[in-house]
């Protein structure tokens, strides 16, 4: 049975991943740490695109909201990290609901643009209130999760596992089923008695919840929050690419895509500027030749059996 095989594979990979700190250099761990948070971003995006059928060009709107909320609270109120993260989650969810409202009215490129603009606006607001947010510079946070690469890695891995499990089971649960139906054919879903709006709002909140937390954790790992890390459209693009690369509608595939993007970017660092070029070129080729994405391809194979 395919499902269980996927489960086993995941468990084995997790087991392996958890041993990495024992034999990998601090630097590589650092790269993987960011990659894991990135994976959560991509999974949350896939929940919206793959299941709710909403193309969100602005995942960084939710991430940025979370990240900056946490950063501001930590700086201004000096709350402990867990509280900051919790607050980040709340604000992100509110943002998610805001984003969901147009989603119920608009479709295709039109909704896409709104999400895009949401990011640009957030960016501008951050710059305007530079006095608090540090504007273009970004702001450093007094607290960090840990300075030990190992610990940071563990934290990220645990967080990735938890949110991965949550999102995966949500997507595979009855709710996920309904969501998928609603995303694919709202009319039919409605005539089966499902309140499409309700379920989409739920999906947006869940996606926002994890994006927000991940954003907050990321900046507590990096020790600083800046627009080009958690808000910039370039990041949003990377997230989308990661999800499509890993395989739409697979949730877990997004992690693979995310790790691939970040890792590739680092491996190619000696290429200087051109590293970005190579990564995007590879991504483009994958999209052209394996449109189902890496994991999606594997699963599709499995289904044919």
């Amino acid at each position, binding site marked *: 049975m395919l499902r269980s095989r996927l489960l086993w594979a995941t468990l084995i990979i997790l087991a392996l991943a958890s041993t990495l700190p024992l034999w990998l250099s601090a630097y590589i761990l650092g790269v993987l740490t960011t990659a894991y948070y990135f994976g959560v971003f991509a999974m949350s995006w896939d929940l919206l695109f793959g299941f709710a059928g909403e193309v969100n060009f602005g995942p960084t709107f939710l991430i940025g909201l979370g990240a900056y909320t946490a950063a501001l609270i930590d700086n201004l109120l000096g709350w402990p990290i867990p509280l900051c993260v919790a607050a980040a989650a709340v604000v992100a969810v509110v943002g998610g609901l805001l984003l969901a409202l147009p989603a119920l009215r608009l479709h295709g490129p039109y909704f896409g643009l709104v999400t895009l603009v949401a990011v640009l606006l957030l960016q501008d607001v951050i710059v305007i209130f530079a006095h608090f947010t540090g504007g273009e510079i970004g702001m450093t946070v007094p607290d960090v999760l840990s300075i030990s690469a190992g610990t940071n890695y563990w934290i990220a891995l645990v967080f990735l596992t938890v949110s991965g499990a949550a999102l995966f089971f949500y997507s595979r649960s009855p709710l996920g089923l309904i969501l998928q139906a609603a995303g694919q054919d709202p009319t039919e*879903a409605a*005539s089966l008695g499902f309140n499409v709006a309700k379920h989409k709002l739920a999906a947006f909140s869940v996606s926002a919840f994890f994006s927000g937390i991940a954003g907050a954790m990321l900046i507590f790992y990096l020790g600083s929050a800046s627009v080009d890390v958690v808000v910039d459209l370039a990041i949003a693009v990377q997230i989308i690419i990661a999800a499509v690369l890993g395989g739409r509608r697979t949730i877990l595939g997004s992690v693979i895509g995310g790790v691939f993007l970040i890792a590739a970017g680092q491996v190619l660092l000696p290429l200087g500027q051109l590293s970005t070029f190579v990564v995007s070129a590879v991504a483009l080729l994958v999209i052209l030749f394996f449109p189902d994405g890496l994991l999606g391809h594997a699963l599709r194979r499995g289904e044919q059996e």
Partner: protein
Amino acid sequence: MSEARLEVAGLTKRFGGLVAVRDIGFSIAAGEILGLIGPNGSGKSTVMKLIMGIERPNTGSVRLDGAEIAGWPTHRIARAGIGIVFQHSRPLHRQTVLDHIKLALLPDSLLRLAADPAVEGKARTIAARVGLEAVLGRHPGTLAFADLRRLELAKAIAREPSVVLVDEPFAGLTPSEVAGFSELIRSFRDEGKAVLLVDHNVKSVAAMVDRVFAMYLGERIAEGTADSVMRDEKVRRVYLGGSIETAARIRTNGEQARPLLAVEGVSVLYGKAQALDNVSIEVREREFVSVVGLNGAGKTTLFNAISGLVPYRGTIRFAGRTLGTISAASIARAGIVQCPETRELFGAMTVEENLELGGAHLSNAARTEQLAWLLDLFPILAERARQQAATLSGGEQQMLAIARALMMRPRLLILDEPTLGLAPVILEQLSKALARLHTTTEITVLLGEQNVTFALPHADRIYVLEHARIVWEGEPARFAAEAGAQYL
């Protein structure tokens, strides 16, 4: 017969200017099957959508067990007890048949993260009832067409609705499958459900409905038992255009004429649905041939195959040359020009511009000449020359579509359902125009119609298409006797 489950009264729906449904009213009692029939564009599907809340009525009321539900959101109506079986649906690719049925059984709650165990059992019973038990574990992509329809049926009845709406229950099914479905639908009646069957024509549903409600151009034209409706004059005129007459026509060309188009053993599959089954027809030079058949019989598919718009098995030869792989556009340039059911006009452009585009491949001289001739053939278009195509009346649009096709100077003109949703007076004009084409030009015409009276006078030969197969071929004269009876 018990009290009315579903009561519809004074239902009216406008889309912009056009009135799709005008003052429709009927009621269905528990344990009753009502057939809602009418040709394409008669508004019957809109009525169904209005009941389901997919479209909001402008005026009128819809009562379910006495409670007013008009204007409710669809999901509320569904939960109130109305189920619908869509004709076309987009199943989820990654879920199994069982998952799909389970989906329909799930509560609309955000808190139920795990389906309760009973669901599984229920789903299996339903599957067994509609005859899906054999394919429970398969993905929709791998299902036969009939099974997909069964799946739709299963989903619709999962919530045990007291009213079931079924859109074209038998479209694309083989006779044996039809029997099976009829059984199922009758069983709904026996459970005291109120059932609404929406279909193009009485015939297909006659066997099982208690009453029939016939619509045309958004209005009620007849209501009563299947037989009474079939005998109803209005209905006959809509479908047959009155008594079948066969204007005796002078043979312009005899058997010896060379065949222009030869369709040999052509079959077409839409996904799993057999849209054409080993069809062979022949059209000779300067001949007018009509393919008559009910909606969904496969006429449009046949024409699209000829025009190279759908992939097919079998061979199609035009003027001795096998079409096979040539692009649709080049087929059109080669001389087979189709004037489709949907007309495909350039709505935002003027009549003139539409015609101009039709003549784009001609030399300037030829174009002006052709244009003059057509404006003479359809004088109304001359008056409307500068008007936007979208703003024309249905009849005028149809004439424009035909004229635009003729601008290409086709050797073979394919006319698909030119009478669709047109008022009788327009039919007259079209009829005349065709007659003139026949007598004054070298053109060959292949006409697809469900309106036999329109088709007969313009035909040298007739093919009858039914359930994707050619079931009769012959001269108009023999049609009434041999095929006419079983046609409606």
